[in-house]
């Protein structure tokens, strides 16, 4: 019993140990640090992924604070994959720009640990700790290019706004604890609503939602997103837009599943409004963007709106749709920002859309990755995004949210325009976009893997969908 108790946190241990080892290597083995550190980081992320995939899932452990069931494990695997991909994309990128030190790799692993904690927390305290670990690490990662003003500005912006949102979240948790007397998430949210605790419960939940809305950049808490995504180095943006959003959304999914029917009845209209607003504003604002990273930022905002729409169906079996789309979304955005990273020259980021003219012919594979990711984000076949969108709309309509689904469909129609615009620039215009130096076989390999996965999931989604529906049904019991 004791053994398996420790075994279930092997992913956490390997990430934490990897991070500490990297800092040690940076401090004591200065001469060979640049060789050892990436290998260490890669190995510990891989170890985390493998251990979370292979060790039998357990129940809530550690005084009921940490859930190690199938749900948490599934997300732990996703975060390990995201971390691995980010490491691969940033390997050359960071070295060429001179920020490949121990702090970058170590902090990246700690951020991954934070994500796993957030998605696996069954206790408010662990959730809060995980989120703070994640956020603090991200502040550092965004500012990784110390001599780049845009990067620093982005980090400061994320820090200031993130702290405020964190404050709301903390206060919300405190209020929830005060009202329900439970720090256990499912027990607290699952408690029945009475006349006495109604005001407190709703106040607490609303405050928590402000914090969460900031982290997954729902409209109207989204204003930081384009600036931060644009300022941060592209591999970090990939990590930030996928990992942190998926982690917080996984937590939100857990809250929604646990919440009592009466509590949910109050939350659903709020989610309805947020989802509609996010889908509309995200997509419409993206139309006007002239920079690829900003365009992708608004697109990722809109994507969260679609997922939130399906989250409303969570009490009617919509949870597996949400989980499936989160996994697909992680792949798509990782691929899109990863493509920006491998298409960027040595000195600066390739951000202006005009710089991508004719890129499809100069770098067919890397631009192809970007194109497939954009097609997937737009929801066109034969990509995973097509199945994902279908699953989301299916869940929403099945649960009776027809009007919201129609809003989503109209927003998706608008979105097709800006995705096609990028496609037109990549393949239908000619220009001197310049040849990008080789960015290493690893980055291209990761890109190919994402591309292959997106197409594979678009054609045979069944195994993943079945696995997810088993995981979700284990969680709701």
């Amino acid at each position, binding site marked *: 019993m004791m053994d398996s108790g420790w075994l279930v946190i092997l992913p956490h241990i390997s990430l934490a140990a990897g991070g500490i080892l990297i800092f040690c290597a940076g401090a004591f083995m200065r001469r060979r640090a640049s060789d050892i550190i990436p290998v260490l980081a890669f190995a510990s992320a891989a170890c985390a992924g493998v251990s979370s995939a292979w060790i039998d899932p357990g129940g809530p452990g550690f005084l009921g604070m940490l859930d190690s069931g199938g749900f948490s494990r599934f997300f732990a695997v996703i975060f390990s994959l995201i971390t691995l991909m980010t490491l691969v994309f940033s390997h050359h990128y960071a070295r060429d720009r001179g920020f490949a030190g121990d702090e970058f790799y170590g902090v990246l692993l700690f951020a991954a640990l934070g994500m796993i904690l957030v998605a696996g927390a069954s206790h408010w305290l662990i959730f809060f700790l995980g989120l703070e670990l994640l956020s603090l690490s991200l502040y550092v990662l965004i500012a990784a290019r110390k001599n780049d003003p845009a990067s620093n500005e982005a980090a400061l912006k994320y820090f200031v706004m993130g702290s405020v949102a964190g404050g709301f979240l903390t206060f919300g948790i405190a209020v929830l604890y005060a009202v329900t007397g439970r720090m256990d998430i499912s027990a607290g949210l699952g408690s029945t609503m009475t006349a006495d605790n109604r005001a407190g419960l709703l106040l607490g939940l609303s405050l928590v939602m402000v914090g969460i809305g900031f982290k997954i950049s729902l409209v109207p808490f989204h204003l930081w997103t384009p600036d931060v995504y644009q300022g941060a180095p592209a591999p970090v943006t990939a990590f930030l837009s996928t990992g942190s959003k998926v982690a917080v959304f996984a937590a939100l999914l857990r809250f929604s599943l646990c919440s009592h029917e009466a509590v949910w009845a109050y939350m659903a209209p709020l989610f309805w409004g947020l989802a509609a607003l996010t889908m509309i504003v995200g997509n419409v604002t993206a139309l006007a963007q002239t920079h690829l990273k900003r365009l992708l930022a608004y697109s990722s905002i809109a994507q969260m709106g679609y997922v939130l729409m399906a989250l409303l169906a969570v009490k009617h079996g919509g949870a597996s749709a949400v989980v499936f789309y989160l996994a697909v979304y992680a792949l798509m955005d990782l691929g899109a920002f990863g493509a920006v990273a491998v298409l960027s020259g040595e000195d600066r980021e390739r951000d202006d859309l005009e710089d991508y003219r004719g890129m499809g012919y100069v770098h067919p594979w890397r631009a192809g990755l970007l194109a497939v990711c954009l097609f997937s984000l737009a929801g*066109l076949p034969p990509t995973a995004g097509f199945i994902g969108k279908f699953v989301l*709309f299916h869940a929403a309509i099945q649960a009776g949210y*027809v009007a919201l689904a129609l809003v989503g469909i109209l927003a998706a129609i608008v979105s097709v325009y800006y995705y*096609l615009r990028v496609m*037109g620039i990549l393949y*239908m215009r000619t220009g001197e976009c310049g040849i990008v130096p080789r960015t290493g076989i690893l980055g291209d390999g990761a890109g190919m893997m994402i591309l292959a996965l997106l197409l594979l999931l678009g054609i045979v989604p069944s195994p993943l969908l079945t696995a997810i529906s088993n995981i979700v049904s284990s969680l709701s019991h």
Partner: protein
Amino acid sequence: MIPANLLSLIIFLPLLGGLVVLAFRRHPNPCRWISLGTASMDLFLILSVYLLEIRVHQAGDWLIVEDTSWIETLGIRYSLGLDGISLLLIMLTSFLGIIVILVSWTQVTSRVALFHFFLLSMQTGVLGVFLATDLFLFYLFWELQVVPMFFIIGIWGHEKRIHAAVKFVLFSITGSLLMLAALIGIVVVHGSQTGHYSFSLFDLVGTSLSSNLENWFFAAFLLAFAVKTPLFPVHTWLPDAHTEAPTAGSVILAGLLLKTGTYAILRFAFPLFPSAAGVAVPVLMVLGLSGVFYASWIALAQKDMKRLVAYSSIGHMGLIIVGVAAWNAMTLSGSVLQMINHGLTTSALFILVGMLDERVNSRQLSDYGGIWRKMPVFSGFFLLFCMSSLGLPGLNNFVGEILILLGTFKVQPAAAVIGFMGMVLVLIYVLRLIQDAFFGEPRTDWNVRDITGREALILVPFALLVILIGLYPHPFLDLVDGPVRNLVLETGTAMNTGAM
């Protein structure tokens, strides 16, 4: 005798060939030959199905079906079915699939491998639409055919190609996403009634819907299909797309993509929502007839030959819609036959205009005149297809049009009479085209050759088919007769109750 997944082979063989072609990026000629080989093999497969299967089954039922589980959690299956109607349409598809490769042989010289990849994957999408019997699978192919077309117009098109390509996709997506909502809607309703979640067309036919819901669902399906057809007034993407597309793109658009719209109306929209369809019949007739008149009227004013043919295309499709809306055995047979006829005639006209464009580098009617004296053989072909387009007896279009109009006369005499008058308008603009371009003073500054051997190879099959269908349409009509009777039997009664 027939391999179990023959239909899948037919659908995915072109895509496979397309992927192989991509490997020959630096060698244009192997690309062309491999594509031609793949497309010919596909046609051979389909023709062998025709020759073998037709003897075995004389009835109008499904000749070959294929059914495998695909996405179990949602009740989606990978199911395909072939009946006479789809057989006829996939024969057209694979025939035009070969033609477009031949047409582009000298016309497309840049990014040849990519071009052929898109041509072949396009064919996969269209074949899938004609064969899918699971609604989700159908929707997948329906969306899939849009993507290659976007690139074909956008990369190899003329001056305003990007605008036209984006417009094409936006129109299509708007229709199809709303259809997606309705599609999920009917599945959910059917599932909650029977407890069995299925996307199969056969399961969903006969789902009892409240009339309000049924009207909305039908409207969403119809919008998606009407945009593709294109039905007046959602046709405005078509002239742009045709004008900007390379010849191969125009042939695929006119010959295949537009057919998926009318095919889907009679395969999915009417059978799934019969009483709503019954209510919509007058609207469809009015829109179809307005299309005939409007398109002919606009065609009269066109100075660009490609645009003129594009508008004539809208007019012909309008008549097909009239035939579908009348929904009896005669008009449906006529409409299906007319889909084939339109695919042959309009494609041939686009190819001829493309050949002129290749020689003179202009599509403006005012730049031409007296072609007959310079290029007699070419002009002969042009005249033949123009005569076919305006419905000269003895040629293919006459048979389809007469079936549609006579059948419509039985149920809606007024519509048929108006339709006849529309045919007269077609006569005017086609004769004007011929007069302006082929007769009159020749332009002495040209030095153009008559058609080459390759071009003759393209045009002769078209000419033979046009004449064959015109003189002896029975083999084609026999093919669709059974399925059409089933459609009328199953959907017709329910439609009438709706119209009451």
